[in-house]
């Protein structure tokens, strides 16, 4: 089977489901405020993009997401490394980390908006907070996954602990870290949107709220469409980086992804 043929098949399936949707809405006379037809969604999307309102708000959300991702991921990597390397830190820190992780962090968003205001900061903090956990857990698991034989080899060469970290533990943890980053990127987007829902002056989340409030369901759908495309693109960035970094890892799809599933949500 050729790749081009598969891509064609994929497009046909999408076109077919859109056509079915359009037909069902029209034939059953579903009101626009319940389920708009695809044509209405695309019209709303076109108008929003032409008026630059969508694009401006898209940049806001993207900016919040990226900043939150960087902040959350850096913190998660640092803390994960400290916990993985020191049993003592783990002993004192880990109970709090687990307690915090089991907390539904979406419920924290109103509090964060109260603390950090309606502007950029509260969105970045919320995005960072939600992106933090999957990567931290994966960093810990990854750094601890170094095989005993490999550690023994390094020790037999009289390697220092920091050399074992840089030459063995960290590269060995990369499949786990990349899987964690993949989840963290999507989580950062969710975190930013949730904080926008709670209270904000700009962003796609704010826009969805406003359009819903005005009964413009087609408009809300058009934003959701943009959000899912944005999520897909952000994910693709990580996937491309992962393929480059992990060219050597044949088993990334099994071991590391299982670990990320364990860490998710």
């Amino acid at each position, binding site marked *: 089977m050729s790749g081009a043929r598969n891509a064609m098949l994929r497009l046909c399936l999408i076109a077919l489901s859109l056509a079915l949707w359009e037909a069902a809405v029209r034939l059953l006379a579903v009101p626009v405020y319940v389920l708009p037809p695809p044509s209405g969604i695309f019209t709303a999307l076109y108008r929003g993009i032409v008026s630059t309102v969508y694009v401006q708000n898209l940049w806001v959300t993207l900016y919040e997401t990226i900043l939150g991702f960087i902040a959350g991921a850096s913190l998660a990597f640092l803390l994960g490394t400290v916990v993985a390397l020191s049993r003592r830190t783990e002993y004192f820190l880990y109970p709090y980390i687990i307690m915090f992780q089991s907390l539904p962090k979406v419920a924290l968003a109103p509090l964060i908006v109260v603390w950090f205001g309606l502007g950029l900061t509260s969105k970045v903090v919320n995005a960072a907070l939600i992106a933090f956990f999957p990567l931290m857990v994966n960093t810990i698991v990854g750094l601890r996954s170094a095989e005993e034989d*490999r550690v023994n080899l390094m*020790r037999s060469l009289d390697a220092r602990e920091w050399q074992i970290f840089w030459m063995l533990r960290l590269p060995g943890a990369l499949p786990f870290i990349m899987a964690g980053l993949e989840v963290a990127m999507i989580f950062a987007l969710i975190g930013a949107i949730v904080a926008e829902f709670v209270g904000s002056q700009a962003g796609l989340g704010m826009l969805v709220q406003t359009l819903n409030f005005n009964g413009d369901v087609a408009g809300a759908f058009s934003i959701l469409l943009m959000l899912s495309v944005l999520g897909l693109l952000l994910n693709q960035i990580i996937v491309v980086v992962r393929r480059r970094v992990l060219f*050597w*890892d044949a088993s990334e799809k099994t071991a590391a992804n299982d670990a990320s599933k364990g860490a998710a949500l």
Partner: protein
Amino acid sequence: MSRAGLAPAGEAREPRPASVQPMIAVRRLAKSYATKRGGVVALEDIDFAVAEGEFLAILGPSGCGKSTLLKILAGLLPATGGEASLRGTPIAGPRRDIGVVFQSPVLFPWRSVLHNVLLPADVQRLGRAEHERIAFELLSLVGLAGFEHRYPWELSGGMQQRVAIVRALVHDPAMLLMDEPFGALDAMTREQMNLELQRIWLERRKTVVFITHSIPEAVFLADRVLVMTPRPGRIAEIVAVDLPRPRSLDVMSTPDFGAAVKRIRAHFNARGGLVA
């Protein structure tokens, strides 16, 4: 039974002139572990010496403590009694003048063949250019010229283990410790690797301590075979193998070879059929 083929260690001539000080001297070495149900003695009363440039095989069934012994020699485990020394200095921890080959190749998949081989040079911060040259030279010695920029997963098991041997040699260690390095290979590849190892050894003349549970492998490769019995791990006998070198695989069908194998096997038969 032929006299030429083997002789008890005590009366055996050294295979080649030994230096005044042995490379390795092990005296009354013991190792015991504490477990929940009391202590377990892994090694007891181990005494032997290895001459510079000698090939010593340590042979025994699983659980006789031979891997423990190798870890102590590599400085990865402390002994609980007695002493092991290398060139007169006690082995108290990992040393830079020892190369270790493990049962599995233990290659890092994110490093190319060349960079795997250069790992000891990276860890010990030895001159890059010079060791790269040595790495190329050694890789071609083991028939891996042209594979320098390949990755471990692109190589067969036998090739991977050859990379591991080259890695153990690249920093020019005084001694090579090998822990059942060919145990995971199929029988045909294993014989080829034995020939190859002999060739490398004849060319480089490193002191080698080689652990195995295969009697023919030990007799084929070694100048002397140290036979160990389990629970606790003790030395049963040290058998000198005076077969001429280089040995071909045909040596295995000679009476001298058979006699050495038979003599070693007797130690295990006597203890209830622990035949390797």
